[in-house]
Structures are given as C-alpha cells and as structure tokens.
C-alpha cells in the first residue's frame, strides 16, 4: 500500500541554508584534516609530499590541494593503517570481502556509529518511516554494512526491527506477511525477487509494505517501476559504501528526484576522472567523498569510481542538501575513444530509448589506421524487425544518430540476429577492446 508521507528526521540540519552548510563543512573539514595529519602517517606523508599543511586548508575550496585516497590504499594499509583513532576507541569493524582478494575494513568510534545510525534514520524517515513502522531488514548481517546499517537506523527511529538478514525467501515472505512488515530494506534485486515470489504465490493483497530503502548495487528507473508495481510500495534508492561508513551517505526522499547527500557528514565532489580536475554542479563525472565527522577512519577525497552528477537546488521536500543522481556507470569501464570519454552506460541509455531495443548489446573498440573505432552491436528484436530493408536500416541510423548526439562520437552500429549476443549470469561484460596499446 503506497501510504508513505514525507517526514524529515533532523530538519534543523537537513533543511539548513546552503551558506550554513558551507560554514559547517569548512569548520569540520579543517578539524578532520588536522586529525588525519596528526594521526595517520599515510596522509601526513602525502600532504608533506604535496607541500600542503593542515593550516592551508581553510575552506572547501581548498579541497583540490589535498591528495586523493584510492581503494588500493585500503588494501595496502590493511588493516589499521588508515585509522585515526586508537584501537581502544574503535567500537566496531565493518568491511567487504572484496572481489579481488584482500579484504578492506573500516573502523568506527562510538561517534561514528552514532552518525551512521542517524544517516540511515534520515533515509528511513524520508521513505515515510517512523516509530509505528515494522522494518524488515533483508540485507545480510555481518561485516557487510547493509544489515547492521539498516538495523541501527531503524532502531534509531524507534521502529520495530525484524532482523531477517538475506536469503531464505519463503521465510522472508512468511514473516513479512505474518508480522505485517511495513518497510523493507535490502538490495533492489533481492526486493524484486521477493516481489516476484509474492506475486507468484498470489499474496499481493496480503502484504502490508508501504515503502522500502534499496541499495548496495546500482539500479534503474525501470527497475523501480517494476518493483513498485510488484509490491505496491514506494521504492527508494539509498547510497553508501563501506569505505565511507556504509549505507545512508545519500538517500532519496519521496520526490524520487536524486539522493540527498548527508553533507553535514561528508563533502561530495565531482571530478573529471581523466584530468582529476573538479567539475561544476550538473556535470557528470567521478564522485569523490571526504569524511568530515568520522574519527575512526576518516577518508580524504576518496575516489568512488562511481559516475553521477550533483544538483544543489533545494528539493521540493524541503531538504537543502545537495542531491546526487543515480550512478550511471563506473570509471573502471570508461573507454577513451578518439580522446572522448565514453561510458557503456551512456550508450545503454541511448539504446534503451529506441523502441524495441533489448538490453543485449556489445561494444567493440578497435584501432584502424591509427584511428579509434567503436562498433555497437545491438540485437535485433521482433519489434524492430520490418518487412523492408530500409526500415531496418532506419532503426540502425536512428541509433547511430542518437549515440552521436549524446556521446559526441560517430560509431558503427551493427544489428545482429536475436540471441547471438552472449548472456551473462553475473556482471555483464559489454566491452571488447581490441586496440593493441603496447609500447
């Protein structure tokens, strides 16, 4: 039942003026830089190398003087190398197993756990949550920040928490129904699976959910529509990452028009992933975060490799914190074609707007006579198929034109027969780069 209404957990902070936010950020940034310079050897060394002293950082405009932090730093200085607090003051470790071997961890002081809980509390309020709600947490509990993060936030707002953890779908649905859960927290793909199962079982009218906060993986508007229809809820996007402390760094309100970044706890920047230069509001680039309240493991200019853009306009809901768009891609899969940065996600969004095009495509990069070429292979679908050759060619040209106008480069579009593009069960590999860039 879609009955969620807009609520603001901490209006004093969440609706403060842009000037006041800036003031707060300036002050907290100075304090954090002083802290890491004094307590974290890596940061002190890097700042010294750049000739930057803590006193040089006066406002957020000085951020660009500071070195970046990369995910590899968390591995290289594993486990405690980036901690700014003594272990006796660290009350929690969270982490991610890391798909590439070595794990990464984040340490929390009591203050950090408290701040994290409030960030998630704000997200749950923004999704219409409160003390009358029964929140089913179907994120995994453990080192992964999803389960405990949602749990703490729901506890903070005084809701009743059902700590289901992930998996065991039958049981999830049974408890959801019997206990009358009103909110759900899990990954959007698991929520979709739950929704499909609810539908299959014919239980759609028997579930009391009104909304949910879904995150920990990128998803699309189409997925939201589908999820909202399946469970008859408001499906909200929540963003976070272990390195910055977990979910709740940013969250959507019921306007569903971007995620509010908790700017009293972090500073967000967008940079050009190639030149590393900061980009103005509204431009798409790599999202970079600086912690300004953490005392356990504050990270400076942490490169998320996530691509999005920022919007500083106040939201219709009343909140004033900057909003981030959905994550549209990763810098890791960025291609540089004839000097232009191209993201597979940009091409995908163009393709999805052409009638009949399915999300099965492949991008093939090559170099012919010292010029980069990009071939976009798209599977022909029944909807695109016409009885005339010119009709099919028109669709091909339409795709070509649209890519040119969005991405800014000419590509070759090849329509391939149905079911000829490889299907992926896990993370899809959509780019084949045949350029021989050896030296």
């Amino acid at each position: 039942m879609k009955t969620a209404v807009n609520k603001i957990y901490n209006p004093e902070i969440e609706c403060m003026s842009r000037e006041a936010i800036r003031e707060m950020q300036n002050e907290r940034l100075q304090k954090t830089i002083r802290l890491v310079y004094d307590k974290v050897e890596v940061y002190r060394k890097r700042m010294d190398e750049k000739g930057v002293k803590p006193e040089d950082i006066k406002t957020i405009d000085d951020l660009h003087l500071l070195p970046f932090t990369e995910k590899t730093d968390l591995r290289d200085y594993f486990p405690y190398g980036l901690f700014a607090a003594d272990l006796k003051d660290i009350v929690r470790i969270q982490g991610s197993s890391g798909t590439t071997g070595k794990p990464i961890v984040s340490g929390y002081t009591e203050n950090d756990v408290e701040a994290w809980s409030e960030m998630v509390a704000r997200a749950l309020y923004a999704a219409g949550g409160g003390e009358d709600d029964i929140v089913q947490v179907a994120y995994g509990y453990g080192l992964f920040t999803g389960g405990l993060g949602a749990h703490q936030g729901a506890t903070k707002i005084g809701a009743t928490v059902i700590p289901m953890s992930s998996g065991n779908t039958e049981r999830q649905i049974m408890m959801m129904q019997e206990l009358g859960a009103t909110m759900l927290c899990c990954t959007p793909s698991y929520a979709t699976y739950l929704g499909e199962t609810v539908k299959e079982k014919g239980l759609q009218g028997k579930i009391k959910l009104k909304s949910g906060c879904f995150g920990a993986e990128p998803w699309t508007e189409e997925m939201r529509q589908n999820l909202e229809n399946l469970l008859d809820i408001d499906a909200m996007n929540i963003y976070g990452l272990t390195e910055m402390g977990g979910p709740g760094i940013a969250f959507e309100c019921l306007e569903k028009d971007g995620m509010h970044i908790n700017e009293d706890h972090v500073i967000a920047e967008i940079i050009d992933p190639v030149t590393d230069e900061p980009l103005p509001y509204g431009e798409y680039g790599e999202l970079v975060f600086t912690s300004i309240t953490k005392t356990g493991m504050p990270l400076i200019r942490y490169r998320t490799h996530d691509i999005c853009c920022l919007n500083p306009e106040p939201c219709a809901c009343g909140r004033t914190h900057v909003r981030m768009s959905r994550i549209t891609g990763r810098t890791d899969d960025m291609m540089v074609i004839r000097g232009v940065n191209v993201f597979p996600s940009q091409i995908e969004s163009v393709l999805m707007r052409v009638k009949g095009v399915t999300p099965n495509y492949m991008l093939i990069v090559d170099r012919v006579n010292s010029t980069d070429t990009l071939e976009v292979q798209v599977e022909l679908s029944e909807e695109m198929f016409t009885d005339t050759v010119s009709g099919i060619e028109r669709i091909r040209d339409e795709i070509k034109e649209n890519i040119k106008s969005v991405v800014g480069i000419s590509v070759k579009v090849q329509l391939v027969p149905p079911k000829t593009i490889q299907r992926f069960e896990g993370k899809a590999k959509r780019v084949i780069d045949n350029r021989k860039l050896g030296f």
Partner: protein
Amino acid sequence: MYVKQISVYLENVRGTLREMTKTLAQNGVDMLALSIADTANFGIVRLVVREEQIPLTIECMRSAGFMVRMDEVICVQVPNKPAGLDSVLEVVDNAGLSVEYIYSFTISLENGALLIIRTNDNDKAYEALNKGKIKVYNQNEINSL
C-alpha cells in the same frame, strides 16, 4: 482490400534459408508468393500463404527460432503482356508514391500475373490503383487460389 504477408528475418549464414524451407515443408505450408531481400548481413524472406495457413506458418517459424512479422500489402493483377507492369507502376508513380519492393506470385492467372506491391503508403496506393482501374486482389480472393 489488402493481402497478409509474412516476413521472416534470416541471418546471412549458410544453411539458414534451407532451415526455413525445411520447417515450412514439414508443416505442409503452401507458399503462393515468395521473395528474398538480401543484404550483406541479413536477409528478409516475404511470403504469402492462404489465410487458414497463416497461424500455422507463424507458429512453426517462431518455434524454429525465426523472427517473424505480419504486414498488409497490396496484391494487383498485371496484364501478361509487354508494358503490363509499366501500366501499373505509372499509376503508382503518378500518385507520388515510391515503391519499396515488388514480387510476383508463383501462380499465373489466365488474364495476367499477380504481383505484391509495397509502397510507402498502402491506403494511397490502394486508392490510386482503384481509380486507375487496376484489379486489386483481397485476401479472400487469394485464399481461393
């Protein structure tokens, strides 16, 4: 007023066309007209069958993995003599229409050949052909061939 045409998408790979004809043969589909458009990457086979065989044709093509669609096209009778086709195209041309493709039936009638004409505007073409006193066949007439 129109005739139903089934189009099949074929990958430009050896054996695909045979795969299609084999499927049609196994299902006893009787083709009344057939044309193949070929490009470097793919081909489009268009065919006309009697109405009663349309569901069967579409179904067997789909279950064999082919992409299929159905369109309405115009079927005309063309005098079986020099300038026969030209007299038809003159009418189409004078109506300001352009032709996408033409192909003929495998059966010839006593008073002329049967052609499928696909222009950029079915309704206008139908109207022009009628005015030009060109005999246009409908699906019922095709069914009894």
